[in-house]
């Protein structure tokens, strides 16, 4: 993974910069000793790392503005960081960059149940947003797998999804407003508590911009009343094609489950070994969850079961108790951890049209053989967001490179069948150099012009999202 050469003139001015940060931040909020900056050298994409010049941890919007103004004046690149759980390298620094971490901004500023909104500081973790309102019967819908640790700031930067977004949408569909600091230190309010933009939809533009347009310090989020109940059903099939056809039939029949999750044989076996959830060992497994009162759940599950039966499932298991429901989800939720136990893995994130599922799974199988690396598939089937997990051993020379090459082939395949490179993880550095597969130069130019407007000097998270060659002139200017 290539990153631009750090600006040595900036590195030479480190002491001077640190001293300027100490003018506007408390001592413990400026991290500059090499032993300590190492903690910020990577995010969830741990294969790539580089200690930053320093890291700053402001505690207010004003402090964020003060830091950005200094960096703007000094021409120093800034890499915003939520909790550092990005799987795409979105928070990976360069040696000449300042990490701006929002972890200390974690207060709830306002909850309004009548308007069904909550306003939080952006360093607050995803799960603790729900935690702040669940006693009163509400929840925040987007639920990325990392929700225990990941910050709302990162969710907004990457427009994160989750297992339940089939019904509730992803971050952008649940975000009403932000307070954002521009690179030059200007503080702007975009959106608020209302439901649509007065002019251009700048909020929609900021969400998913990977920390390249501004640093979000506060966010107003839509919260929803908790459904009366939820119940999953587990189905096993003897081929992935059949499972894919079943997903399509469920959607066509007008049932809209909150989640439809898919696992293939490799994942089933690994998860079953790890979590002992009692999964049937078969070619493909679906977990479908519906919500409502018992009566409503029964009504929906009857329809789903009837559809499933037309596809001759090898197993059809409806959770009868909360414990059984927990078991059904246990295996799926431990999938990444279970895979990590047996191997290093790279988690991909392409999305495909749902009807291409059988073809894409077959092709991934062929590519896996060709490259000699196993690939497990676990993903959100209802919306076609795949997570192929490529297993490799980082200690075997060349395997990381083979894994990357296979990953690129699989993502190209996703684009070829009408899908995209990333459904919920973001481009970061990981998919940066594949952007040309999905976009024409004119498409990328249109996106880069947006950054020109928000961050004319290209200082915010500059070496991400766009292929380095495409952004080079702008970064150098």
């Amino acid at each position, binding site marked *: 993974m290539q990153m631009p050469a750090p600006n040595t003139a900036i590195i030479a001015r480190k002491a001077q910069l640190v001293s300027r940060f100490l003018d506007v931040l408390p001592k413990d909020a400026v991290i500059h000793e090499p032993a300590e900056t190492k903690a910020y050298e990577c995010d969830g994409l741990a294969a790539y790392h580089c200690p930053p010049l320093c890291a700053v941890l402001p505690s207010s919007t004003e402090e964020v503005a003060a830091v950005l103004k200094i960096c703007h004046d000094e021409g120093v690149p800034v890499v915003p960081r939520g909790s550092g759980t990005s799987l795409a390298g979105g928070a990976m620094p360069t040696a000449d960059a300042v990490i701006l971490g929002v972890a200390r901004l974690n207060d709830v500023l306002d909850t309004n149940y009548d308007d069904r909104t909550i306003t939080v500081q952006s360093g607050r973790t995803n799960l603790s947003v729900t935690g702040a309102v669940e006693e009163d019967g509400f929840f925040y819908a987007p639920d990325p797998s990392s929700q225990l640790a990941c910050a709302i700031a990162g969710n907004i930067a990457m427009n994160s999804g989750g297992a339940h977004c089939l019904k509730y949408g992803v971050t952008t569909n649940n975000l009403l407003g932000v307070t954002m600091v521009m690179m030059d230190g200007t503080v702007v309010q975009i959106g608020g508590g209302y439901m649509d933009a007065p002019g251009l939809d700048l909020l929609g*533009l900021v969400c*998913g911009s990977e920390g390249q347009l501004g640093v979000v310090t506060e966010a107003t989020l839509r919260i929803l009343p908790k459904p009366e109940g939820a119940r999953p059903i587990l189905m096993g099939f003897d081929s992935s094609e059949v499972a894919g056809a079943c997903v399509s039939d469920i959607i066509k029949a007008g049932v809209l489950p909150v989640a439809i999750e898919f696992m293939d044989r490799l994942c089933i076996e690994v998860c079953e070994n790890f979590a002992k959830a009692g999964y049937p060992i078969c070619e493909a497994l679906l977990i479908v969850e519906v919500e409502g009162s018992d009566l409503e759940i029964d009504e929906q599950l009857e329809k789903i079961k009837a559809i499933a039966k037309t596809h001759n499932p090898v197993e059809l298991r409806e959770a009868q108790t909360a414990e059984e429901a927990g078991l059904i989800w246990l295996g799926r939720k431990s999938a990444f951890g279970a895979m990590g136990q047996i191997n290093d893995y790279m988690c991909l994130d392409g999305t495909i049209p749902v009807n291409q599922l059988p073809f894409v799974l077959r092709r991934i199988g062929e590519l896996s053989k060709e490259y000699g690396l196993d690939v497990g598939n676990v993903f959100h089937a209802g919306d076609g967001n795949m997570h192929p997990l490529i297993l490799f051993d980082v200690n075997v020379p060349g395997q990381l490179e083979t894994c990357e090459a296979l990953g690129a082939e699989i993502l190209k395949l996703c684009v070829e069948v009408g899908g995209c490179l990333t459904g919920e993880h973001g481009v970061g550095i990981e998919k940066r150099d594949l952007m040309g597969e999905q976009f024409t130069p004119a498409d990328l130019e249109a996106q880069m012009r947006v950054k020109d407007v928000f961050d004319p000097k290209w200082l915010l998270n500059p070496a991400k999202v766009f292929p380095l060659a495409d952004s080079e002139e702008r970064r150098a200017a």
Partner: protein
Amino acid sequence: MSAPTTEEELSKAVAAADGALRIVGGGTRPIGRTGAGTRLSAAGLTGITLYEPGAMTLVCRAGTPVSEIEAALAEENQQLAFEPMDHRALLGTKGVPTIGGVVAANVSGPRRIQVGACRDHLLGVRFVDGSGQIVSNGGRVMKNVTGYDLVKLMAGSRGTLGILTEVSLKVMPKAPSRATLRLTGLDDAQGLAAMTLAMRSPFDVNGAARVGGDVFVRIEGFDQSVAYRAERLSAELTDNGSVEVVRDEAAQSEIWTGIRDVTALKNHNYVWRVAMTPSRLRLGLLDGVLHGLAFDSVIDWAGAQIWIGLTKGQLSLVDRGAAGFHAMLQNTLADPTVTGRAGGHATLIKAPEAFRADVASFQPEPAPLAAIAAGLRAKFDPRGILNPGLMT
């Protein structure tokens, strides 16, 4: 008047333009300043190019009539769940509403409170920018975070950043059954309170509106579920006026089409749309600056949107008439002591063309945001020829 039928023709027409262009689809939503310029219609770019019911996606050219899309979806028992408003009744316009027009104005109906707005159902766009360059963003899959989300930016940009040529939409199943609770005998404050209560319930309300003195609350889904929720919700709302459950399909269709299209205000000469939070709507607007004024309204989105209509007679009682009312509304919405940190905005939707030429129909934005918007327009339309002045 130029009427290209392909993206390439449209691109050439824009590249060759030597002055301002006035972009139209079906021409049914004349909102904002209608500036001078050569009329350029996208209505010639028609046709559904891809429809996959099992993947809940539809791709079509921007000039495709909304009615054609709705008919194709109905055959598969699906729909545009965001329930786009047809502006013809309210604005007294003729013509055929196009999907490009819906997207360009981010038009969303009552179901917005549950399923999101038009922009939330927009998966991808192709457009021609102000230089004639063809740009694609998003795609046709449900989850896509590849690159910046220009899809959202284009939704609601009203032809000022580019001319839509193709849109890709998420479509959803039509519910087999629905029920509408009609609450009568409530004033505005009680009506808002009833809608708030309904929205706080777990019963998945997907329409909550107040029109003509009544409150309507809609539930959709499978038969048993609808019956169950209608019963539970009726019981919870018994302290809020008298509750009647409407199950007749034709009657419900009339109620919700009326709310969606704001037909209650079709005879009003001036109509504004205000977006703010339900709690501030009551405190800041209804009990505040509007208190004691004669006007009519349709409250939708459970109180997050209010349409305010004034007849000439009603305006004669307002200080400085329509201009005074317009300024008062927008000033009020810009006042944080009224809207709180949640904010809000007012847009002039209906007024004589001469009046619209003189005022900013859209809520003026704070300077830093206005600068960003101007910066984006300058990048996407460097010659300033796409609907100049329409949104500012």
